[in-house]
């Protein structure tokens, strides 16, 4: 029973969604929107599990005074602080806690945004180091990858203005549109088929690892 009920539920919801896709009539045309709405509520509760896991880990660190417990304290402190700021902002701005001027907006603008942007910008260094290593690999596949990368890169940023770079720009555009696209299309079609097979296996209950 502990297995059958969940598997039956997966089957029913999956099949209901698929049937609803073909019927443009009420209530079927509403099924998808309703289920998405429900999923937002359900996953909202799931976040409580996440917070529990994170805080339990760090509060144990603090209690045991493990090495680096100070950082756990910082994490816990900022979690509580921002959460409280979010609740206060929501009350202040009648549910729209992200209104410019609210304290949650402040946190977002001066902490989340610069931290995210900086992490994202680390990619400039990492893409360089990855390219450098690809350059040293002496296998045919790596060479193909590198040659294509250099062609497109130079084509996108013409170093000099002459006939050669003009040609390279046009060539790299062609390269993106034709050979690059060809392989991507093959991969996409494969992914769609693989995902379809996987979805069917999930709906039919053949694939059930996620329900251990």
């Amino acid at each position, binding site marked *: 029973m502990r297995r059958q009920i969940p598997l039956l539920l997966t089957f029913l919801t999956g099949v209901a969604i698929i049937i609803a896709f073909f019927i443009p009539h009420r209530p079927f045309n509403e099924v998808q929107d309703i289920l998405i709405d429900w999923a*937002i509520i359900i996953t909202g*509760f799931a*976040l409580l599990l996440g917070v529990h896991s994170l805080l339990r880990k760090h509060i144990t660190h603090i209690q045991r005074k493990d090495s680096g417990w100070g950082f756990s304290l910082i994490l816990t402190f900022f979690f509580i602080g921002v959460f409280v700021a979010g609740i206060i902002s929501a009350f202040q701005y009648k549910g729209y806690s992200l209104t410019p001027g609210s304290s949650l907006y402040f946190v977002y603008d001066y902490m989340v945004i610069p931290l995210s942007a900086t992490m994202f910008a680390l990619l400039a260094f990492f893409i360089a180091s990855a390219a450098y290593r690809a350059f040293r690999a002496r296998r045919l596949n790596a060479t193909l990858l590198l040659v*294509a990368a250099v062609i497109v890169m130079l084509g996108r940023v013409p170093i000099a203005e002459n006939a050669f770079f003009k040609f390279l720009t046009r060539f790299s555009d062609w390269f993106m549109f034709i050979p690059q696209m060809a392989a991507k299309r093959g991969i996409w079609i494969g992914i*769609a088929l693989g995902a*379809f097979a996987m979805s069917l296996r999930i709906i039919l209950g053949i694939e059930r690892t996620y329900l251990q």
Partner: protein
Amino acid sequence: MKERKGLIIGSVIMIAIFVLMFIKGEPSKSIMVWIAAILTLSIYSFLYKDNVFYKFAEHLFVGVSVGYSVSVVWQNAFIRRVFDPLFITRTYIVNDKFSLYLFLGIVIPTLLGLLMLSIFTKKQAWLIRIPIAFVVGSYAGMGIAPSFQANIFEQTRSTLYVTLSISASIMIVGVISTLVYFFFSKEHKGLLGKTANLGIWFIMIAFGASFGYTVMARISLLIGRMQFLLHDWLGVIK
């Protein structure tokens, strides 16, 4: 060891440049810009090695972002979708009549969500499988049509040509050979093996091109951060 030395010299030079700019420029008077700048530099210090500044920024980042998402979820899921419609706006009462359909539309997902908390009990922990099964089942069904449209119909249609130009031939050969590479149920030998090999060449070329295409976009991200540091914070660039 050599790398280490280079990095130390590099960081010293960087710090010197920042100090010089600090004296020369017009540093921001906003404390928030200072916080943002210090956090930015703390993250960059990771490139040298793990250190106190990075650890601080990392733990702050995790704490802040979880606090942020909890308060957003609190508002979007609990208040706006459960608490308000149940107790304040009472959306299930239409023209003074109680609508069971609308009422269950709020209560069922709430109960399913509450089943998540069964994980904290020892005996009834299996109940968490019910909301999981529900979410996975619905999304497994929902994903199929968009994936067919974007990945099969759109891609197959775009591979059909009316003239067999060089580009068209390359496209068709590329798509087919890549698909052949993903054949799992036959051993890649003989003609099949050769086609699959051609497929992997196409894949590598495509990945290379895509890599090269992204490089500049990533460098412009770095330029964006530098602009923040030099313009917003230090005020060297106007």
